[in-house]
């Protein structure tokens, strides 16, 4: 594939309750395999995906947090989080299982302008 496009995957849903979070993650990983630059932006309940110590064996699902931890190995290291989404839930960067960059509203709008393809889940 010759053309390069900058991809932004927005993930807004909590893990496990529905397939959205898993689908967002699979899309990010697949796009990275296609050697396109991929960023992820966690908004709203999507920030819950980043919580440590997820143990989903009892609900018969795969550990989404474990897959998220592997993102940097796929060269997906541009991970952004809505500052107010995190803080309004009583959480901070230390609660996250990965290093993330906090963005305010202006920075989110700018992040979008800097990407060619934006997929939201």
């Amino acid at each position: 594939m010759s053309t390069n496009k900058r991809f932004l995957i927005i993930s807004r849903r909590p893990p496990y309750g529905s397939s959205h979070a898993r689908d967002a993650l699979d899309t990010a990983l697949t796009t990275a395999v296609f050697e396109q630059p991929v960023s992820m932006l966690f908004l709203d309940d999507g920030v819950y995906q980043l919580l440590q110590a997820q143990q989903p064996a009892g609900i018969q699902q795969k550990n989404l947090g474990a897959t998220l931890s592997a993102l940097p190995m796929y060269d997906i290291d541009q991970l952004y989080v809505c500052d107010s989404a995190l803080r309004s839930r009583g959480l901070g960067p230390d609660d996250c299982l990965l290093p993330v960059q906090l963005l305010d509203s202006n920075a989110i709008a700018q992040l979008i302008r800097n990407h060619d393809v934006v997929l939201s889940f």
Partner: protein
Amino acid sequence: MTLHTLNRAPSNTALLADCLRACSSGDTLLLIEDGVYCALAGQPIAWPAGVTLCALAADVAARGLDSRLASNIAQADDAGFVQLCCEHTRVISWY
């Protein structure tokens, strides 16, 4: 007496409000699936008086909330969920 179950995070403000509005004193609210995020300590939720709160244990563990629950929330396992259904005369699911 009614058992209410709620399966969405508190960001679904209208759902949570409807659920709490529908509770009478003596009712129990069981948080399940994404509803267990309502049980996270430090949430600004105005729980109605006289309503017992609990959260489904498998969902709490799945989401990494074991050490993060508010102190007024008890955990129930699947057997406890069934028992709560027996102890209340009707069950309403908020989703």
